[in-house]
């Protein structure tokens, strides 16, 4: 065992020397390889982190949302629906929600205006008060205690005191959020209590009963659209997967180019390398030693590229907020959810990434080495 370890140490020592001897070629290979890993890992890390954020944020979302549809389009839900839904056994915390979008012409951004749910006491706002997402605070340069001025669609100016700014860690859903009281909301959009609510939210006592409750709702309110939290999660999942897919498709060209480059560089043994292999075999190295040495060489390049690429991607996504990919993967509005992502790495994706990059590269180096290593070493004598 000690001899085997010593032998491996000699092989690694020689391999490191060989890498340094051809440092120009190897550094170029390492740089391109690292860049590819960086791009792939960035997309993967960002996708995973966004899914995690979405899931975390939706933990606070109602289990079931009921929306009124008129001619297939979302319309206000009548106030008596709350009473009708209250009769369903197992349904709890039934309340009408008021939310909508508002385009702020002053800054050219869309806000989500919302009345906080009655049970969210930490988000409670009184008449003339507002809680805003940090992106709006940054955009409008408003601080806690300051005033937010909003021009309603009817042209009336609203002066709202900012009592709180929502933290960045929940910014995926709250970056563009404006929480105001029900009275202010109805006044802002010219709605009366008889107009009803944007939709109705409820929770279910036993989560296994959600499908049953959904069935009951559709029976009581046949024109309603019923959305569960699972549906929303699935939608987020699809949106992020779709965005991720688009980016990966764009990267596919770069990947193919890399594959050709890597195969060309890794598989093409120079005359100098062939001569070296001949010398090593002639002086007593076994075919397996030569192959092991080349495996170490390919493995070291790909492992370093993977570590550097993955570390750079981690820093890019979690320290620099994925500044290169945010417009593609994060943004869906003028107001980007500018938030720090929780460092979440999907191990399976990372392992898959390692496999689809390290193994093909190592194999690409192995085939020509195998061919050279099984040749009689008398090549050095000729």
């Amino acid at each position, binding site marked *: 065992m000690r001899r085997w370890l*010593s032998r491996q140490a000699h092989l690694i020592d*020689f391999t490191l*020397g060989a890498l340094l001897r051809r440092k120009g070629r190897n550094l170029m290979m390492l740089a391109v390889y690292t860049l590819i890993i960086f791009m792939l890992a960035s997309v993967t890390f960002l996708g995973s982190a966004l899914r995690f954020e979405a899931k975390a944020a939706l933990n606070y979302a109602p289990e079931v949302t009921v929306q009124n549809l008129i001619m297939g389009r979302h319309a206000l839900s009548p106030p008596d629906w709350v009473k009708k839904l209250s009769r369903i056994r197992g349904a709890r915390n039934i309340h009408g929600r008021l939310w909508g979008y508002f385009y702020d012409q002053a800054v050219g951004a869309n806000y989500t205006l919302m009345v906080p749910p009655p049970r969210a006491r930490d988000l409670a706002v009184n008449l003339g008060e507002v809680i805003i997402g940090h992106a709006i605070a940054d955009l409008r340069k408003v601080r806690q205690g300051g005033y937010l001025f909003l021009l309603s669609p009817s042209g009336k100016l609203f002066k709202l005191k900012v009592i709180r700014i929502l933290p960045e860690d929940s910014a995926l859903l709250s970056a563009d959020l404006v929480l105001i009281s029900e009275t202010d909301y109805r006044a802002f959009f010219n709605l009366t209590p008889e107009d009803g609510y944007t939709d109705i939210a409820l929770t279910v006592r036993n989560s296994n009963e959600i499908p049953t409750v959904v069935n009951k709702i559709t029976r009581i309110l046949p024109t309603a659209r019923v959305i569960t939290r699972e549906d929303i999660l699935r939608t987020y999942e699809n949106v992020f997967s779709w965005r991720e897919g688009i980016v990966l498709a764009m990267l596919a060209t770069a990947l193919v180019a890399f594959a050709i480059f890597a195969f060309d560089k890794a598989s093409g043994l120079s005359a100098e390398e062939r001569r070296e292999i001949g*010398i090593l075999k*002639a002086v007593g190295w076994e075919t397996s030693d030569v192959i092991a040495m080349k495996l170490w060489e390919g493995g070291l390049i790909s492992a370093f590229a993977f570590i550097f690429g993955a570390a750079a991607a981690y820093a890019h996504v979690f320290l620099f907020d994925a500044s290169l990919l945010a417009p593609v993967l994060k943004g869906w509005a003028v107001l980007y959810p500018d938030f720090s992502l929780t460092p979440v790495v999907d191990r399976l994706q990372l392992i898959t990434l390692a496999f689809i990059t390290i193994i093909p590269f190592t194999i690409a180096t192995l085939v020509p080495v195998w061919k050279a290593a099984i040749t009689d070493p008398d090549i*050095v004598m000729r």
Partner: protein
Amino acid sequence: MIRLEHVTRIHNEGRPNAVVAVNDVSLEIPKERVTVLRGPSGSGKTTLLTLIGCLARPTQGRIWLDDELISALPERFMTEVRRRTFGFIFQRFNLIRGLSALENVMLPAYPTGESHAALKARAAALLERFGLKARMHEKSELLSGGEAQRVAIARALINDPAWIIADEPTASLDTALVDQFIEEMRALKKAGKSIIITSHDPRIWQADVVDRIVTMQDGHILSVEDVSARERAEEKEQNA
């Protein structure tokens, strides 16, 4: 002793450009002697040397090392025999560029798994013996011809082989370095090493250290001359 029985080597066998490099050669090479294979270019001496040194296999025939049939050994065992038994000095020395003299000398012993410290000490001692103590950390491409030659000899000796095989070792050396090489061969012979040299350099096969001269042409052996016996006879004649 190394014994060759009807050894033939065909390069590119089965192809239109096939060449019979060694043709039905039978030969015995004694231990602890200096044997020179001589002949013009293309006579097959280097190919014969590669077959003796287990660098290639004969197309036909058998090669024995003492009582061991080495020409039929599987690749792995053949490599082991090569590492254990033979030390090679190549034409142009074939040192690996970018490695120091010391690292080049250590190279053949890497597969043995000997500890780095012990190996380094042994390689350094060898280089010191050949007067290269001050140059052992120099990159091989920066060494002079004579220094490179001595590094190549040190590399051939690192695994303490019984046989030294040298292929045209003086092809690119001046007279002083040829004399130095001959002296080094003399010292190795004295130390009990068996030496086989291919050369068409008369300075080598006229050297008094040489015991046997095998002359080759077109893959055949033309003659085997026991020079030491001849010299002894001449000495006797002169004394008489």
